[in-house]
């Protein structure tokens, strides 16, 4: 959504609650797919990825200073895993796609990699009361300003994929080593996968994609027919999580 429209919404919204219902609609429509100049997507080929190596997760968490849940160096009560931080992690197939599970088709035993879907129409950004999280116009990445976030966690309630984490504890206490190139966070803000915006700026691939030795991840702009993501999606049938919700996830799974 462009700035003019944003300001327009602000003014219009302030004129009255009556007008507001209409503008929620406008906001939702304004976010419709295709608005972003680029449409970055990640395609995960589950025929190649069996969820049995920690490479992508380790690379991501190292790259982004994501705290360990059980850091042996940290002298203090251990962080409960339910309060931990996750940018990319493993889920069962039934967890990620429970509407797809039935008794008769063969059970998929392998875990899947899950992360923020960088949705086309993200409910998480719609609910933020301070514009601390938004979908970037340039490439469609759903990003967070950790200096703006007030920690109300409305976005966590709004995300239908459980993709967001909250810093319940001081994240710096649970870092084994700090990578200087990426900011560490403070207590009380929300964070999640950023599609490696910082690496893309340098012309690099996302850390997880680069780290995958099975070459199971293809990343790229879906508006570019020749990007690895477009090519991968043309080559096989792929699904997204909870498509019926209209969020338009940009993380695809080839089965």
């Amino acid at each position, binding site marked *: 959504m462009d700035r003019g429209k944003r300001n327009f*919404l*602000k003014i*219009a*919204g*302030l004129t009255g*609650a009556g007008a*507001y219902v209409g*503008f*929620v609609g406008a*906001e939702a429509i304004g976010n419709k797919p295709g608005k972003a100049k680029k449409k970055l997507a990640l395609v995960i080929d589950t025929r190649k990825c069996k969820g049995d190596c920690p490479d992508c997760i380790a690379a991501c968490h190292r790259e982004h200073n994501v705290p360990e849940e059980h850091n042996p160096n940290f002298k203090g009560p251990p*962080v*409960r895993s*339910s*309060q*931990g931080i*996750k940018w990319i992690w493993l*889920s*069962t197939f*039934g*967890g*990620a796609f*429970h509407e797809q599970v039935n008794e008769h088709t063969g059970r998929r035993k392998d875990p899947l990699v899950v992360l923020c879907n960088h949705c086309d129409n993200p*409910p998480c950004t*719609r*609910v*933020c*009361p*301070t*514009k*601390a999280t938004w979908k970037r116009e340039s490439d469609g990445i759903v990003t967070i300003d950790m200096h*703006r*976030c*007030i*920690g*109300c*966690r*409305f976005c*966590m*309630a*709004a*995300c*239908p*994929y*459980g993709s967001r*984490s*909250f*810093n*319940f*504890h*001081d994240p710096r206490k649970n870092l084994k080593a700090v990578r200087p190139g990426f900011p560490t966070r*403070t*207590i*009380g*803000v*929300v964070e999640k996968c950023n599609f490696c915006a910082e690496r893309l700026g340098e012309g690099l691939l996302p850390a997880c994609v680069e780290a995958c030795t099975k070459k199971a991840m293809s990343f790229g702009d879906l508006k570019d027919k020749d990007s690895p993501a477009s090519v991968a999606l043309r080559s096989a049938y792929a699904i997204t999580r*909870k498509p019926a*919700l*209209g*969020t338009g996830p940009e993380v695809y799974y080839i089965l």
Partner: protein
Amino acid sequence: MLEKALTGSKGYFAWIFALLVVIGVGFGTYLYQLNEGLGITGLNRDVSWGLYIAQFTFLVGVAASAVMVVLPYYLHDYKEFGKLTLLGEFLAIPACLMCMLFIVVDMGRPDRVVYVFLHPTPNSIMFWDTVVLSGYLGLNLVIGWTTLSAESKGVAPPRWVKPLIYLSIPWAVSIHTVTAFLYQGLPGRGFWMTAIMAPRFLASAFAAGPSFLILMVLLVRRFTRFDPGDVALRKLGQIVTYAMFVSVFFFLMEVFTVFYSAIPEHKHHFWYLFVGGPWWLVGAMWLFVALAVIGLVILVNPRTRNNIPTLAVGAACVFVASWLEKGLGLVIGGFTPNPFGKYTVYTPTLPEVTIAVAIWCIGFLILTVLYKIATGVKQERAIG
């Protein structure tokens, strides 16, 4: 008028002191939470809102329920509520303040609370909730204070309050509607995805708020010579009865829709609350059912409703039942199971409960002081 709060019996000061002690403990605990982060609560990635936001939701209802005495008095000229309206408006003030405190203690970065106003975001329901709630607090402060000071001077309230009073009626409805919108507009949260969330909120609020008011009036009557009268109390009882029937009816509509359609993502939340959850949660939900039934049985029978002691029991049942449903089940149930179908048990921790209790005590402190002033002024007028 404020000086009326500074004189009182030994019991009055003992009560104030007791509240202050709990508030002090809660404040200390909050400093601990500020320092350590919300990790000291039972909240987690999956149940990311809990006791705090549930109290907020419940108390918005209590605040909104003032309309149940204001409306009959000002729109229908129901004279018997003359002495009650001020108590209703003065109940809304601490309720609003408690709501705000519960939001603040739930925030990860309360130091940034002004960002909500510095970066107003009309597409966020949270922004609207802040706007309507502060507006409602302001309205009740102005209305309550001007009518009371007019009364203490023995003159009619200034003409300009009337429009404000009329404005406060739809405004009360709006605060709870907007609060329901926080929940009901979220994709993928089956428990909250229901268009009757706002009506349900209003119905349970109009049951819980006036039943609390009944109990407060009985206390006021016991400790002061101010008495709004049995007729007013019985009328409140009638209001509670209707509202509670509507509230239970709405709840049953929810149950029908969820279980007849048998959509798993809607059913599982109910299952967790009433069958599969931890014992204290399942117990609380069945207690809600039991108290709702007992309350209705007492209230629907004119003999027990019109008899003040049994009316009080009925009102207490309704109040506690509504609290269990909204101040506990609504939020926890909505977050469990999580988007992966996983059941993460949320157990409020001791520090979390302490902070919540302390905020309730702040509410009671403000309520006590406001009621002390109001009854003091009213008694003077009655004598003089």
